[in-house]
């Protein structure tokens, strides 16, 4: 495992760049534990100061230091992305492995449901969800709703791998040695799909963070939890751009774009590493 990481870092520039970007983002998020001000407090520093020492990224119109606010926000945003990704991974693993292994009618029914989930436009449904929940809408509820809606695409991918695993000899051997379906799926097939699961996790985190930012910017989430979307929301509420307080918007946008590109690079380089053909092409070139 460590050796793979070292090789990836040395020979794959995309992977190295992705790791560097994400490490920076995680460092900013970790800084929030040392914040001198509580996240929810406002008017703790003079408002509307441009970036300068000691407020490196300036202060906003709510009297908060943009840097510390940003580090709280990115921490919550990352946590949100991870929770959605982990929850939805569980669903897509179960559906994908079972459909691929069982085949026949089970496969057809599961994949029809799966394809429906891929096609259905999720955004109006999430907005409807917020509309019904209103003040009770919290971070955890949104994560749950998005995990329940966002598993389908990856389940299809996992199924396609599981389909080919089923015809392999070791699956037959395990059946003959009396392993149950659950045992075969968990002990034999799961290790094979884990690399794909890892790369789809990156894409899923990107997807969920993107939706969360969008929903928060429109004001469709709990306005009190600081996330990147919430920062942009408050900046828009105070018409920061018209007032010339660009640092309130520019820094959150820059940091979230770094997160997206970092995760995307990791996913792409992982995909390339998993596919032996492109790995050979890279080594030959």
């Amino acid at each position, binding site marked *: 495992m460590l050796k793979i990481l070292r090789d990836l870092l040395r020979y794959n520039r995309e992977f190295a760049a992705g790791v560097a970007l994400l490490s920076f983002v995680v460092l900013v998020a970790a800084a929030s534990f040392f914040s001198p001000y509580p996240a929810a407090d406002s008017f703790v520093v003079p408002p509307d100061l441009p970036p300068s020492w000691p407020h490196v990224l300036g202060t906003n119109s709510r009297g908060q230091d943009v840097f510390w606010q940003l580090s709280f926000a990115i921490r919550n945003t990352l946590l949100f992305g991870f929770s959605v990704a982990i929850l939805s991974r569980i669903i897509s693993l179960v559906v994908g492995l079972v459909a691929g292994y069982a085949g026949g009618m089970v496969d057809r029914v599961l994949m029809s449901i799966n394809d429906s989930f891929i096609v259905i*436009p999720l955004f109006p449904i999430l907005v409807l969800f917020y509309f019904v929940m209103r003040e009770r809408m919290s971070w955890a509820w949104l994560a749950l709703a998005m995990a329940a809606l966002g598993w389908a695409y990856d389940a299809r991918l996992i199924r396609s791998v599981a389909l080919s695993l089923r015809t392999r000899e070791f699956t037959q051997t395990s059946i003959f040695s009396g392993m149950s379906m659950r045992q075969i799926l968990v002990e034999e097939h799961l290790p094979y799909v884990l690399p794909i699961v890892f790369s789809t996790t990156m894409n899923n985190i990107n997807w969920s963070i993107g939706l969360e930012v969008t929903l928060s910017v*429109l004001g469709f989430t709990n306005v009190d939890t600081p996330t990147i979307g919430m920062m942009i929301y408050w900046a828009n509420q105070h018409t920061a751009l018209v007032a010339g307080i660009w640092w309130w918007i520019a820094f959150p946008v820059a940091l979230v774009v770094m997160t997206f590109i970092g995760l995307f690079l990791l996913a792409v380089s992982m995909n390339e590493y998993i596919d032996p053909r492109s790995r050979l092409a890279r080594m030959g070139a």
Partner: protein
Amino acid sequence: MRAYSLYLFRRLVQFVLVVFIGVNIAYVVTHATPIDPVEQTVSAATSFGSTSPEAIAMMRQSLRELYGLEGGPLQQYAAFWKRVAVGDFGPSLSAFPTPVSQLIARAIPWTAGLLTVSTLLTWVIGNLLGGLAGYYRRSALLRFAGILTMGFHPIPYYIVAFVLLIVFGYVWPVLPITGGAEMNLAQAFDTTYAGSVLVHSILPVASLVLVGLGGWFMGMRSLVSNIVSEDYVLYAELAGVDRRRILTSYVMRNALLPQVTGLAMSLGAIFNGAIITEQVFGYPGIGFLLVGAVHAGDYSLVLGVTAVSIVAVSAAVLLIDLLYPLLDPRVKAQ
């Protein structure tokens, strides 16, 4: 021909299933949450000033009917389906007494136009560039185009739209940043109105195209670079077939098939993007209507937009699926 009708039948069943699941999710979301939407709306409406108890009771009654909370669970479920099937979501609460269906009908042409133009542009440009980049691997220009499109790919619609808005609205104000057409311009089929619609659509379309390009580019490039090493391509090259002809009718045509399926599968996501783009640029389509309805607390309009978008997106997917046999004759011949 039998294979074709079997194909048609399966697509139709899938369409029905998508609508069924989508509407059921909408039903579960509105009915299984721990919050009573009626009491919430009533308390929101009565928090300003005093209202007589009789008026509150009347309001509660009409809201309960509107939300479909009358009768047992089965009756509620049937009533919900009936409203979706007929397309009657009652009067809008925020634009009373205009029916919801009328508001949606007014907004749909804008969204449909925006989506059709931007999706086609994205798909054609992305596949063309990706195909060329996969075939001419050494071209520096195509490689640069690849880096550019892939750089935009992971950034969500909202951020790209927002940055475009800042750049062309504040930093270098050359393009209109809000609305579907010039204000106080009469809606007519003449050149001034059409030109105004065109100019207003540049930024929304640009943001959708920029974000969408990368996905098609990457998909097409890897498909083409796989097909290039197939035996029949090598054979055609050895036989001296014109390179351009190999690219178009040997390589691209085969690579396009999974991309068409991909287009059908990604329509839902593209629709999400369009909703957000409309909100950022104040484009008078479905998305703008939806966000406005949420802020106004207009339940029937939110539900109507959700149901209509589920049906519309799955109908568009069905349309693509029905056109698929034109590209792939194997579906018909089997």
